[in-house]
């Protein structure tokens, strides 16, 4: 099939439509606005609904209503807007409703700026909202991967009845790359016997996250914990790049991982045994990727577009068995390949420790 040139944000929209998403509720924010622009055109074409809400708080609660009524539904935003959605995301997780939330991360904290960043890693992977809950987080690194992962995102949301976040950044949203869309398939949305769609002669259904009796809430929390454990066991995803024999392993996701691939290539050309682990699921964190390499790898260097957030998960995974270093740029500044190479050379073979 022919390849076409597509912008990252638009690819999210097309990927969602092809994954059977028919409802979008959102509020404008840079750098993700091309996605709502695209869906405002595209969803009516397929009999869906695009609705611009009055705020992110309203958007995520519209998602709650639509998801509880049985729809495949999505919203998208960036940093400050995702902060406003956190209350709703906690409710969605508590009520076990499937939905997809896109965060094209910009620089923070506060209003920060609209430049690409990865500074919402903690917020995405550690909860963000209140209570004991988890959100599955997917981090694509190319426009093609966006298309492929949107289907995965909606399927995971349904399989586990849980919100799924797709985390990118301004670069990924804005850049254009050739993509293969593939055949448009008829999507069968899995049955939703739990959805509250009006009784229509059936049993009463309730969409709820309130458990006023402590014993009952503990049971609910434990049930969620078992689900999260299952997800952690089954759904770790990552990409390995030139890991064979690597003595220094880079760990990076999304845009930072693309830069790190160039770093790996340059280092390998110079005879340095460097490889890359690129987490595709940020939660569950792909701990399984580390076990096979930890024997040979002497040290790890985590590269992020923030001041060091995923590095904490790498440290937890490596658990003191090897030293873990960090290099990052923030505020919308990018880690330049040459700088990362310099950092690698400082660490490789143990110098500079």
């Amino acid at each position: 099939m022919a390849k076409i040139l597509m912008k990252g944000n638009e690819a999210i929209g097309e990927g969602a439509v092809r994954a059977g998403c028919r409802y979008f509720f959102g509020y404008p924010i840079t750098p993700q606005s091309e996605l709502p622009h695209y869906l405002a055109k595209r969803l009516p074409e397929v009999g869906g609904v695009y609705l611009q809400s009055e705020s992110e708080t309203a958007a995520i609660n519209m998602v709650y209503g639509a998801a509880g009524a049985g729809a495949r539904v999505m919203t998208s935003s960036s940093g400050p807007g995702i902060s406003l959605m956190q209350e709703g995301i906690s409710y969605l997780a508590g009520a076990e409703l499937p939905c997809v939330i896109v965060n094209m991360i910009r620089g923070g904290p506060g209003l920060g700026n609209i430049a690409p960043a990865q500074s919402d890693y903690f917020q995405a992977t550690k909860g963000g909202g209140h209570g004991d809950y988890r959100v599955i987080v997917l981090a694509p690194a190319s426009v093609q991967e966006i298309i492929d992962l949107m289907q995965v995102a909606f399927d995971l949301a349904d399989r586990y009845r849980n919100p799924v976040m797709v985390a990118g950044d301004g670069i990924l949203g804005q850049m254009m790359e050739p993509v293969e869309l593939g055949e448009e398939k008829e999507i069968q949305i899995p049955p939703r016997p739990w959805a509250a769609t009006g009784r229509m002669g059936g049993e009463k259904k309730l969409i709820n996250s309130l458990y006023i009796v402590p014993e009952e809430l503990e049971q609910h929390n434990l049930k969620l914990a078992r689900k999260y454990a299952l997800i952690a066991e089954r759904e770790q995803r990552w990409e390995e790049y030139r890991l064979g024999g690597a003595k220094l392993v880079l760990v990076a996701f999304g845009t930072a991982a693309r830069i790190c691939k160039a770093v790996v290539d340059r280092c390998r050309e110079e005879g340095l045994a460097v490889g890359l682990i690129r987490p595709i699921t940020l939660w569950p964190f792909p701990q399984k990727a580390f076990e096979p390499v930890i024997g040979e790898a002497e040290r790890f260097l985590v590269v992020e577009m923030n001041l060091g957030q995923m590095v904490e998960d790498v440290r937890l995974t490596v658990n003191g068995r090897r030293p873990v270093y960090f290099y990052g740029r923030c505020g919308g500044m990018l880690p330049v390949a040459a700088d990362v190479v310099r950092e690698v050379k400082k660490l490789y073979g143990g110098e500079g420790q």
Partner: protein
Amino acid sequence: MKKVFTRPRSLKDIPTHYCPGCTHGIVHRLVAEVIDELEIFDRTIGVAPVGCSVFAYNYFDCDMFQASHGRAPAVATGIKRVLPDRVVFTYQGDGDLAAIGTGEIVHAAARGEKFTVIFINNAIYAMTGGQMAPTTLLGQKTTTTPYGRDKEVNGYPVKIAEMLSVLDGTAYAARVSVHDPAHVIKAKKAIKRAFEVQLANLGFSIVEVLSACPTNWGLPPAEALKWLAENMIPYYPLGEHKKPAEVG
């Protein structure tokens, strides 16, 4: 023998958690009677709020959602956009609708969302311990206005029915009271009209119900009803503030 009074099908036969003399129970019953009479029970979806009526989802026997504080209109929007042929209603208190959820209610009305809002105005945040609500009357004592609500400090009470009636998306806005039987009958008529407006796809409909909270007002039930009639009705005029021609 002919049965002349029975529990509505749409309400479950279980005791409620409301205080003695609380009028939430009366309003529940009215909504349930209307759902029964319009024969829409099977396709009705309710949205319960945060506040004293948070457990409304246990009492209404139709499908229900529990929404976060103030967000019921957004949740109802999501439901109705997915299921336009269902009947959707929210049930919200004045803290819920007129404070934290002001944005959601104003914009749901402005969009002309085709659901019905039952808005309980008891001039107080009841569940959290009797704090001032946006609807608390000037001079009214609450736990956070111990000297009485002062307009210089807290501004003026909000008249929701009037406020929403000026929006083009609002098809029906009424204010009723449930402090005596005659008013209860009128309240039911308004609630029925609001649902009929939704069924006719005319736009957003809201019924503001002046309601008593004897517990947080610190009054015996009968006196609470009297206080409502004497103090709330003069500030919150009853009547249909907006209605489409079709429902007369």
